[in-house]
C-alpha cells in the first residue's frame, strides 16, 4: 500500500515550537506526531498516558507523581528522563517563558525529579484540569539541548521526525523508526499549506492533496459526499462560535437587549446558510460532546415578536445602530452577513467592519472597543474565561466568578460536572454572548485513508495510526 500522504492545512505555522506560540497551526502539525507530553488527549477528548506511563494523585489533590516510560529517546538520540520533564515544565512557567498558555502552569508550585523515571509535581491548589492541561501542545516535553532550535528544527519523542519545511508551501515529516511505541504505518507525510478554500477544493479534486482534516468550504461537502473518491467525516471541535458582545457597551449592557437579539437571530439559518448545515446548535459556551454538557440550545427560540417585545421593554422600540467587527474567517464573515440581516428586523442596524487578526486583537480583544464580533473560541474547556475581569466580553458577574472558583478547587468528577452545568445555565440566562453553534470538524479525505481523527478535542492531526487501504 501507499505509505506517504499529503495533508492539507489552512494556515502555515509561524514556526514549529508549540511551547512558544498560540497558533493552532503549530499543534496541527507537530503535536502527537513529533512532540509528546506526559499525557495525551485522544480522539474522544479523554486523557491517556503518553510519556508518563502512569501517575498517582495525592488525597488533597495537590501532589501528582508521574512514572515515566523507559527507553524513550529524542529524535537526536538523547535520552528522555525526569530531568527533561523538570526542564520542560520549569521552562514553560518560568519568568522568561514565552509560552502562550502560561496560565495553564500557573497552579504549579514545584517540579522535582524523584529519580530518573519519577517526577513529582506539586500544586499551589487542587486543579481538576491538570492532567488534561498537561496533554496540551503547550506542555510537550523537550530536550534542553535542542529546545531553543525547536522553532525551525523540532526535536521530540514522537513517531515522526521532522524532515523539511518548504516555507509557504509544505512541511514534511518522516517515520521515526526508533519510536518507543508501535511505529507509524506511514513512511512520509507532507503537510501542504492551502490557505484558500477555492484552492483547497481544486487541489482535492485534482488529487494533489489526499486529505483535509479541516475542510473550510462546507458548501462543497454535498458535492464531495457524492463523489466515491472521497470520504467526508463530520466530527466535533472545541470551537464555540459566538456573537461576542461587549457587555459594557451602550444598549448591550441591558440583558433585555441581549435576550432580544438571541430571539431575533435565526441560528439554524446561520448553520444552514453560513455553514451549509454543518454545526451543532448550542446555548452556552460549552462543547456538546463533553460529558458535562447541558443542552440549552432551545431556550431562546427564533421569535421576532418576543424579540420586539423585549426591545420595547428596554425602551428601544425604534432600534439603534451598532458595529459588528468581523475577523477574516469564512464562518465569521458569512454568519455576520446573516446576523446583520436578522437584527435589522428588530431595527438594530449593524455596520459591518472587517478587520484582520492584528486589528481584531488590538481593537476588539485588547482595546475592547467594539459592540459585537463573531469568533470561534477553540480552546478546550475554556468556560473559565467568563470569570476573567479583563476579558473582552466585559462580563463582570460576581456569582459566576464564585462558581468558577469553586470549580477550580474541585477535583471530584460528578461535582465538577454539576458546577459546570450551573455555569452554563448562568451564561445562558444572562445571554452574555450570542451562542451560535459549535463549529463542526468537517474532514474530507481520500476514501482509502484510514485512521484520521474525526473529532478534534485538541488541535492536532495525529498520524500515528493513519494508513492506506487497498
Amino acid at each position, binding site marked *: 500500500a501507499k505509505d506517504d500522504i499529503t495533508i492539507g492545512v489552512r494556515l502555515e505555522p509561524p514556526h514549529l515550537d508549540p511551547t512558544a*506560540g498560540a497558533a493552532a497551526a503549530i499543534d496541527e502539525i507537530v503535536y502527537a506526531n513529533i512532540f509528546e507530553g506526559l499525557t495525551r488527549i485522544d480522539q474522544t477528548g479523554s486523557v491517556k498516558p503518553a510519556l508518563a506511563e502512569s501517575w498517582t494523585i495525592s488525597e488533597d489533590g495537590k501532589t501528582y507523581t508521574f512514572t515515566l516510560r523507559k527507553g524513550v529517546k529524542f529524535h537526536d538520540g538523547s535520552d528522555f528522563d525526569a530531568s527533561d520533564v523538570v526542564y520542560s515544565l520549569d521552562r514553560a512557567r518560568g519568568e522568561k517563558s514565552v509560552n502562550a498558555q502560561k496560565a495553564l502552569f500557573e497552579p504549579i508550585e514545584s517540579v522535582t525529579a524523584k529519580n530518573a523515571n519519577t517526577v513529582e509535581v506539586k500544586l499551589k491548589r487542587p486543579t481538576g484540569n491538570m492532567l488534561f492541561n498537561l496533554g496540551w501542545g503547550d506542555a510537550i516535553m523537550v530536550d534542553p539541548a535542542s529546545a531553543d532550535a525547536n522553532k525551525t528544527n523540532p526535536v521530540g519523542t514522537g513517531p515522526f521526525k521532522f524532515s523539511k519545511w518548504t516555507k509557504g508551501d509544505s512541511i514534511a515529516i518522516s517515520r521515526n523508526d526508533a519510536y518507543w511505541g508501535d511505529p507509524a504505518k506511514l513512511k512520509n507525510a507532507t503537510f501542504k499549506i492551502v490557505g484558500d478554500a477555492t484552492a483547497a477544493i481544486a487541489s482535492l479534486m485534482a488529487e494533489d492533496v489526499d486529505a483535509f482534516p479541516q475542510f473550510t468550504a462546507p458548501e462543497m461537502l454535498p458535492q464531495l459526499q457524492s463523489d466515491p473518491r472521497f470520504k467526508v467525516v463530520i466530527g466535533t471541535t472545541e470551537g464555540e462560535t459566538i456573537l461576542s458582545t461587549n457587555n459594557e457597551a451602550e444598549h448591550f449592557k441591558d440583558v433585555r437587549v441581549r435576550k432580544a437579539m438571541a430571539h431575533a437571530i435565526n441560528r439554524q439559518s446561520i448553520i444552514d446558510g453560513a455553514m451549509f448545515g454543518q454545526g451543532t446548535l448550542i446555548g452556552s459556551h460549552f462543547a456538546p460532546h463533553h460529558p458535562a454538557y447541558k443542552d440549552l440550545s432551545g431556550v431562546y427560540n427564533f421569535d421576532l415578536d418576543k424579540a420586539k417585545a423585549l426591545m420595547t421593554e428596554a425602551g428601544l422600540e425604534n432600534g439603534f445602530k451598532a458595529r459588528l467587527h468581523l475577523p477574516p474567517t469564512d464562518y465569521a464573515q458569512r454568519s455576520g452577513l446573516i446576523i446583520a440581516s436578522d437584527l435589522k428586523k428588530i431595527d438594530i442596524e449593524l455596520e459591518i467592519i472587517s478587520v484582520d487578526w492584528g486589528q481584531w486583537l488590538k481593537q476588539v480583544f485588547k482595546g475592547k472597543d467594539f459592540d459585537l464580533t463573531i469568533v470561534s473560541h477553540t480552546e478546550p474547556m475554556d468556560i473559565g474565561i467568563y470569570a476573567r475581569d479583563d476579558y473582552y466580553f466585559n462580563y463582570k458577574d460576581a456569582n459566576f466568578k464564585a462558581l468558577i472558583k469553586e470549580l477550580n478547587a474541585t477535583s471530584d468528577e460528578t461535582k465538577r460536572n454539576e458546577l459546570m452545568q450551573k455555569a452554563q445555565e448562568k451564561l445562558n440566562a444572562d445571554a452574555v454572548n450570542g451562542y451560535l453553534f459549535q463549529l463542526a470538524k468537517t474532514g474530507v479525505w481520500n476514501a482509502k485513508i484510514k485512521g484520521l481523527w474525526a473529532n478534534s478535542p485538541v488541535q492536532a492531526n495525529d498520524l500515528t495510526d493513519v494508513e492506506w487501504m487497498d
Partner: protein
Amino acid sequence: MLLFALRRFVSLALTLLAASLVIFAIMEILPGDPAELILGINAQADTLQALRQELGLHLPLLERYWNWITSMFAGDFGTSYTYSVPVLDLISERLIVSFPLALFALTLSTLLALPLGLLAAAFRNKWPDWGMMGLTQLGIAVPNFWFAMLLVLAFAVTLRWFPSGGFPGWEAGFWPGMKALLLPAIALALPQASILARIMRSSMLDVIHEDYMRTARAKGLNQTQTLLRHGLRNALIPVITILGLQFSFLLAGTVIIENVFFLPGLGRLVFQAITQRDLITVKAVIVLLVATVIIVNFVIDLTYAAIDPRLRKKKGA
C-alpha cells in the same frame, strides 16, 4: 561611463532611502502588535514584554529605523517575527518561486504579444487584425484572478494536466517546477500580453508610415523584409517602455495569483506578513520589490541605448 554609473548609483540609493523611510513610517503606524499576534489571545503581559524585548520593539523609533537601515546594508534584513528565521532566507526561498514566475509570465506575454501585434499591424483592417483586437480587448477586461479560476477548473480539475497549485520546489526537478508555474504564468501573462500586443500593433503602424520604410521598399525589399528588417527594431522602442512599466504590475499581480495557486512566492509572503504583522518581513519585501522596479527601469534605460544609437554617447561625431 564610470561617472554615469556612480551618479546613477547615488540616485538609486537616494530613491531607495526615501522609499525605505516611507515604508518604515507606514509600518510604524499600522495597527497591531507583533508580539500579541505571536502569542495569541491568552498571553500574559509579562510574556508579551519579554517577547517585545527579544524583538527589539522597545527601542525608540529613530533608533529602530537606524538599526534597520544599517543592518540591511550589512546584508542583514533581520529575523522574521513569525517564522523566526532570517528574513533574507525567507525572501530568497520565496524569490526562487516569484522571480521565475514573473520572468516566465514576462517571456510568455512577450513571445505571445510581439508576433500577434506584428501580424495585426501587417494585416491592418483584415480579419487577423480584427480577431486580435477583439481578443486583446477581452484579455484586458478579464480580471486575472477570475481567469486563473477558470484555468484551474479546466486544466487541473477537469483535465488534470497540471497541478492545481502549490510548488514542488526546484529540487523536484526543472519540469515539475515549470509545470507548476505554467498556469499561474498564463493567468499573469494574459492581460499583459493583451496590452503589449496592442502597443506593438500601434507602434508598428506608426513605424509603417515612416519615410525610411518607403526608402527600404524603393531599394527593392518586399513587404515582409521591410517589416522585419526596418520596422521591427524601431517599433520595439515604445514596447520596451511599456514592458518596464508592466514589470511593476506583474509583481503586484503575483500577490493575487500566488494566492489563487497557493504558490509560496514573495507576493503571498508580503500579503501574509501584513496580516500577521510580521512587519520586519513586510518592510524587507517591499524594499526589495521597490528596488526591483527601480533597477528594472534602469535596465530598460540601458536597453534603450542598446537598441537606439541616438541615445548612445557620441563618439567623435
